[in-house]
């Protein structure tokens, strides 16, 4: 921390006439918290780093995790940590300053200067807010469950940016909508201040005594020497009115006592406390402001196709090829009882046809090696092989290609080995491959296409009108992102393919009355300390607040040139009473008519009666 060297000596906070009380702390038992921490989600591209944010919401003792803020590869300038409701912070700070005693002062560590409570509150909030904020608002998405929109204003940035939707689940974890600022930054900001207390000493009088008070005047009597004093008699009696009687100071010490004979110091103090209390209470000035704001809406262009999907099956030949490919020569396969074998592979086309069945004594059912394969085309043995390792499917495919015939036009028989063996039909082998044609793909046809634009798009669905009625099509994934082109969504068993989704952000500017804004505009303690007499004099007239709240207008009148100063002075002088009575060529005649209740000595003895109320005009018409 950047300390003021004159203020911090030997590591201790010092200030003349004050003693160090302790650090400035506020009640930090905030109930509503939003916690964020970097937690990448999903696959990460090589050499890149995701910076998604995990979000936890805490309400009292209950903490629930909710949707993450998906930032992808973009690093958001908002520190991990706990964020607390801005209004709760302001309230906690106000509670703190309200609890200070009259002798206690908040002092800035860096400057060593006292900071008024309102300024302290304002500065702490300002510094804390600079570190960024999380803003929760009612969601605009139609999600069917409880949710809140989350926006983030990054550090040092002015505008917040919407970052997604927090899905709160069935149990809900909703926190109050509003701005949340960093608890850690608040604590850092508070470390810039310390609390000090005025050491007990003789309290100087609030009313500064006159530099040369008349001798013998009671201190609690607010008196003054009158410029003129009324003569005895009526105002019509000019002889008696001129010259005015001036009381002799020597000897009797005559004074004119005004209506309020004394100024009650205690009353002034009470008044000041009252004013200070009121100012503390009213320290936040509510005012309506006209602001130029931007609002954003989204127009969503879309194209969606209703598609029909049909299964695509392999051909019989393809199915046969697939099944034949399961067998390699030399492998053994189980053969069931009853399977016929023949002496020749062309037994049904004129070949030798000694035949029998497995399951008999000489050829029991069981495992037999596939030794050879014979290909019969048009009833003739076209070729055969007994080479171990030959894949039957490849062999048949090769022969068909060579012969220029379809696999469906050839008959394939295999020779099962054994002491006595024979040719069997390929289909009699117990194969795992399904010999029926299998689905090898899908044939998609577009039934109907739909295009359009949804103005002021909100939520996560669009509605298209089909021949069967309106169909609601989801267009966002569970993370709130628009679906990619080509995505297929199924609604009521019908498939719809997303052709394109083109969100367009529309920015609209408008001037609106933003309603109430809170500003802290004035200093309480210094008013009480420095200007007691003046404050007392003007508080009763209600001018104090007006004077103190005029800063904004003054700021608006800031200028640099003397010419401008002269211009403002002239404008003021048009309304100036002093200017009116002192203008060149003006002559005024003083007509004193000071109202006096009594003329008495300072010891309280009335030495003269009060004239009748009325005007008194000097006979000589003195002029100024």
């Amino acid at each position, binding site marked *: 921390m950047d300390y003021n060297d004159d203020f911090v000596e030997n590591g201790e906070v010092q200030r003349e006439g004050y003693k160090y009380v302790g650090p400035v702390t506020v009640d930090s038992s905030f109930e509503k918290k939003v916690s964020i921490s970097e937690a990448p989600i999903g696959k990460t591209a090589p050499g890149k780093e995701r910076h998604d944010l995990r979000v936890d919401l805490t309400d009292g003792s209950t903490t629930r995790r909710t949707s993450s803020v998906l930032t992808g590869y973009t690093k958001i300038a908002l520190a991990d940590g706990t964020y607390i409701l801005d209004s709760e912070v302001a309230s906690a700070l106000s509670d703190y300053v309200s609890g200070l005693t009259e002798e206690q002062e908040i002092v800035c560590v860096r400057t060593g200067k006292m900071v008024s409570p309102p300024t302290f509150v304002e500065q702490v909030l300002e510094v804390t807010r600079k570190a960024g904020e999380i803003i929760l608002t009612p969601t605009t998405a139609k999600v069917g469950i409880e949710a809140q929109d989350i926006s983030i204003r990054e550090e040092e940035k002015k505008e917040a940016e919407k970052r997604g939707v927090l899905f709160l689940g069935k149990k809900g974890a909703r926190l109050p909508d509003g701005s949340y600022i960093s608890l850690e930054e608040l604590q850092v900001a508070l470390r810039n201040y310390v609390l000090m207390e005025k050491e007990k000493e003789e309290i100087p009088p609030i009313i500064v005594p006159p530099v040369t008070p008349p001798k013998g005047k009671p201190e609690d009597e607010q008196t003054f020497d009158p410029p003129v004093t009324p003569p005895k008699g009526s105002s019509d009696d000019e002889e008696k009115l001129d010259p005015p009687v001036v009381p002799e100071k020597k000897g009797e010490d005559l004074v004119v006592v005004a209506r309020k004979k004394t100024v009650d110091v205690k009353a002034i103090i009470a008044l000041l406390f009252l004013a200070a209390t009121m100012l503390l209470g009213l320290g936040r000035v509510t005012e309506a402001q006209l602001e130029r704001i931007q609002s954003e809406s989204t127009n969503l262009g879309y194209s969606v196709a209703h598609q029909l999907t049909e299964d695509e099956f392999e051909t019989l030949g393809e199915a046969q090829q697939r099944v034949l490919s399961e067998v390699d020569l030399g492998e053994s396969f189980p053969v069931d009882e009853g399977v016929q074998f023949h002496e020749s592979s062309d037994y049904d086309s004129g070949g030798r046809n000694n035949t029998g069945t497995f399951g008999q004594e000489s050829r029991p059912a069981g495992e037999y090696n596939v030794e050879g394969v014979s290909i019969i085309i048009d009833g003739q043995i076209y070729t055969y092989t007994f080479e171990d390792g030959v894949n039957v499917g490849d062999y048949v495919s090769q022969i068909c290609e060579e012969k220029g015939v379809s696999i469906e036009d050839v008959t394939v028989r295999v020779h099962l080995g054994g002491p006595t063996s024979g040719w069997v039909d390929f289909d009699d082998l117990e194969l795992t491959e399904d010999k029926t044609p299998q689905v090898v793909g899908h044939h998609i046809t577009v039934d109907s296409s739909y295009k359009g634009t949804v103005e002021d798009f909100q939520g996560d669905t669009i509605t298209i009108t089909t021949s069967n009625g309106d169909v609601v099509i989801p267009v966002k994934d569970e993370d709130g992102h628009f679906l990619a082109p080509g995505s297929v969504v199924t609604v009521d068993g019908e498939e719809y393919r997303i052709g394109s989704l083109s969100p367009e952000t529309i920015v609209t500017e408008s001037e609106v009355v933003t309603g109430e804004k809170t500003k802290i505009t004035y200093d309480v303690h210094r008013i009480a300390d*420095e200007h007691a007499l*003046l404050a007392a004099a003007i508080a009763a007239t209600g*001018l104090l607040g007006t004077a103190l709240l005029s800063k904004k207008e*003054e700021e608006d009148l800031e200028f640099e040139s003397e010419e401008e100063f002269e211009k403002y002075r002239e404008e003021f002088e048009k309304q100036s009473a002093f200017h009116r*009575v002192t203008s060149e060529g003006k*002559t*005024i*005649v*003083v007509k004193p*008519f000071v109202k006096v209740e009594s003329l008495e000595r300072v010891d309280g003895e009335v030495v003269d009666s009060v004239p009748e109320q009325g005007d008194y005009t000097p006979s000589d018409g003195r002029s100024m």
Partner: protein
Amino acid sequence: MDKQVLFDRYINAYKKLSLDKKREYLIEEYKRTLAYLEKLKKDLDIHEGMLLNREIIDFGQGCSDDDFVEASYVYLKSLQESLGLFLEKLSVANEGGI
């Protein structure tokens, strides 16, 4: 003793004060005068209030020269206006007058 002599002595004593004290006395004189004028205005049923400006708040112990001059200027102008109202009330118009 001649009033002028007394005044000179008085000012000489003022000159020996520290700058902060000089400022303090000056402002207090402004305030005293303003308060008296304010009271007189009340007695004369002058309801127009005292002109003020928050620059007076900036005056205090250790304030800058700028703050002090600004506060002094505000007090002076306020005094002038109160005096002007006072004189207007205490005056009667005659030819060429107000």
